């Protein structure tokens, strides 16, 4: 059932409000409590909030209009389509001159209710959004004179009597004693003629969902501090609740707290929750491995290699002959394109030994023989099989691209195996050609 948006009474003596600005557009999704529009009275400008969720439709007042209090100016519907197309037309707005004097104005009677003048629950304070209907002083069908007390309403501050703005008959009472009614909602209908079938129903019977916050008026006003603290807080607006330290560590370790949220892990997150996050993230390589199954394989032969000679020369002239470090440097340099700002970690495997190299192609910042626990996951694995008799490998993709160097006659054979997810074909070709080129002509590396 669409919810009618009514120009609210913001002051006791107010009979119209100027619609300053719409804060939502027709068709916009609306959550309960969203500010819908701004209204200016002689005292103040206020935002008016939606009383129900849905979509804003049937907007009937433009910015700048002076709208009588109680006039329906829009609807909040279940779909973004206008109510007209759904067959429930809005009533024609009555002339402002006629209603401007009245605190209660005409509004649309739904199908089965008598037509007449709506009596709305007035706003008795600026911050009030509902009022408790304490007691009716009239019955359905009763004749009332202008000024007769219709009902009593209680706010958090006071209890007040609301009087009839015009003489007539009580054709419908739409909220019962003891019900909490949103400001601006219709609570009765007055007609000029004696009604044939006067209506009396509870507000809840009219299908109006009471806002949740009003459903539990009996809730204790203040829970003891200890209990309150034990209730897990709720994040608002998509913000993740985490301690500053948990946030910092997650950032430093590249962990994504949003994954904990997805997993339904209770917030707020503390440092110890990062352990749960780590196991979540460790589960991820399963998909990565699947992607890596589709293997790319490249072979290249070098007929005359210059690497051994270069190594011997380096050992003699520089006293430096760390073959793994040099190979790692060649590989990293061939792999560098597109990774100018990221560290590259290369693992060099030879028979019986394995070493990790961080940015080996960078003289200033590179580190060789990094202890395992300090090294990040490898970006590249290099198998140096030059000194064994294996002549060809086909091992399939691993967690990182694998370059294998083998002896072939006077030269070398280089094989690159990688998952399709690791390297594009073009990048793989660039890596293989750059690496073989450096092995062939090591001086190229120095240039």
């Amino acid at each position, binding site marked *: 059932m669409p919810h009618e948006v009514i120009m609210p009474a913001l002051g006791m003596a107010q009979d119209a409000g100027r619609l300053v600005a719409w804060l939502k557009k027709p068709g916009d999704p609306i959550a309960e409590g969203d500010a819908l529009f701004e209204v200016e009275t002689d005292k103040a400008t206020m935002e008016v909030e939606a009383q129900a969720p849905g979509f804003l439709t049937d907007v009937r007042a433009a910015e700048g209009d002076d709208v009588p209090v109680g006039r329906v100016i829009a609807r909040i519907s279940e779909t973004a389509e206008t109510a007209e197309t759904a067959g429930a037309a809005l009533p024609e707005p009555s002339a402002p001159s006629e209603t401007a004097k009245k605190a209660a104005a005409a509004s649309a009677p739904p199908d089965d209710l008598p037509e007449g003048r709506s009596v709305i629950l007035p706003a008795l304070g600026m911050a009030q959004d509902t009022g408790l209907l304490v007691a009716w002083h009239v019955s359905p069908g009763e004749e009332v004179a202008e000024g007769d007390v219709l009902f009593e309403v209680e706010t958090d501050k006071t209890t007040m009597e609301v009087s009839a703005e015009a003489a007539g008959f009580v054709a419908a009472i739409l909220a019962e004693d003891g019900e909490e009614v949103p400001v601006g909602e219709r609570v009765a209908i007055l007609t000029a003629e004696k009604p044939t079938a006067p209506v009396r129903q509870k507000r809840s019977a009219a299908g109006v969902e009471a806002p949740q916050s009003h459903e539990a008026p009996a809730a204790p006003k203040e829970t003891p501090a200890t209990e309150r*603290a034990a209730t897990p*807080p709720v994040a608002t607006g998509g913000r993740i609740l985490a*301690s*500053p*330290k*948990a946030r910092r560590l997650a950032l430093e370790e590249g962990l994504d707290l949003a994954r904990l949220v997805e997993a339904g892990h209770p917030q707020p997150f*503390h440092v110890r929750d990062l352990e749960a996050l780590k196991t979540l993230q460790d589960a991820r390589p399963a998909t990565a491995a699947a992607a890596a199954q589709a293997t790319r394989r490249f072979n290249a032969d070098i007929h005359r290699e210059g690497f051994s000679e270069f190594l011997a020369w380096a050992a003699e002239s520089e006293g430096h002959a760390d073959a793994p470090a040099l190979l790692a440097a060649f590989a990293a340099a061939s792999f560098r394109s597109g990774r100018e700002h990221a560290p590259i970690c290369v693992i060099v495997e030879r028979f019986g030994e394995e070493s990790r190299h961080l940015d080996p192609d960078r003289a200033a910042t590179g580190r060789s023989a990094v202890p395992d626990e300090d090294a990040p996951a490898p970006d590249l694995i290099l198998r140096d099989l030059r000194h064994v008799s294996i002549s060809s490998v086909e091992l399939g993709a691993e967690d990182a691209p694998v370059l294998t160097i083998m002896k072939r006659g006077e030269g070398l054979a280089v094989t690159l195996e990688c998952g399709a997810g690791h390297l594009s074909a073009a990048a793989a070709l660039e890596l293989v050609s750059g690496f073989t080129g450096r092995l062939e002509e090591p001086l190229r590396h120095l240039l």
Partner: protein
Amino acid sequence: MREITLSQAVNEAIAEEMRRDPTVFLMGEDVAEAGTPFKVLSGLVEEFGTERVIDTPISEPGFVGLAVGAAMTGARPVVDLMFGDFIYLVMDQLCNQAAKQHYMSGGKLQVPMVLRTNLGATRRSAAQHSQSLQAIVAHIPGLKVALPSSAYEAKGLMKTAIRDNNPVVIFEDKLMYQDKAPVPEDEYLIPFGEAAVLREGRDITLIGTSSMVQVAGKAADILANEGISAEVIDPRTIVPLDEATLLGSVKKTSRAIVIDEGHQSYGVTAEIASRLNEKAFYHLDAPVLRMGAMDVPVPFSPALEDLTVPTPEKVADAARRLCAGEMIHAA
């Protein structure tokens, strides 16, 4: 090591300094011949005579003002204010005069004065003799504030205070005067701005001042039985404050409770907690908690009075909940 009471420690400190420096003198209500408050100063008048141990009329503004003048002209007065609550009477002498002379004279005047007074409730002294007003003094630039937590601290801090060229207010815990602690026979001083780590811990830092250091220590005992390892730190002086030690500890444990017997609102605990938040924010896994006396006049009823101050059980309970991650509130 020998053990002496806090009273004896203060007495020794003043006596030693009076022997060392003839410009040091003592005055206050009943400090000499009329019998000494809390029996702290017994024997001093016999040794130093009524020239240097002076009974004053019951006029706190008068004799504190006199001490400020004496300090400005070269003496080193130690002024005895019988109850910390009487600080209110000497606000002008202390905060407008003593605290500001050095600054307003362009450095030409110094006020090397010690105002010796006390704090602490649960002595059944009612609302006007039970307050812990160190926060009020610490708020005023130009005053140093020392809060000894045992006989050892009381002696070392008093000697440093007497030698300091600035006005220093020392608050002793009036319930601790008869408590004994190991105090070396040899002379020692405790520098200002150096916190003492009384117990090392891993999970939470309990920062206690004065009377609350014992409370923090007992809370740490309770927590240790439950497997929560609490570090206990005594800042010893809150002006100047040893931030480095406090921050270092909180960065290690990532949680902290600050405990002081002053009223909780707008107090010493708030200042320390705030500095930890500002300077160790990304090391905190829980909000820093303040624990002070209830924001009520200290009741005379013993049953009620005991409810107003932090206890080891209350501290342990708060620590337990911080460690369990129960105290981050939604923004």
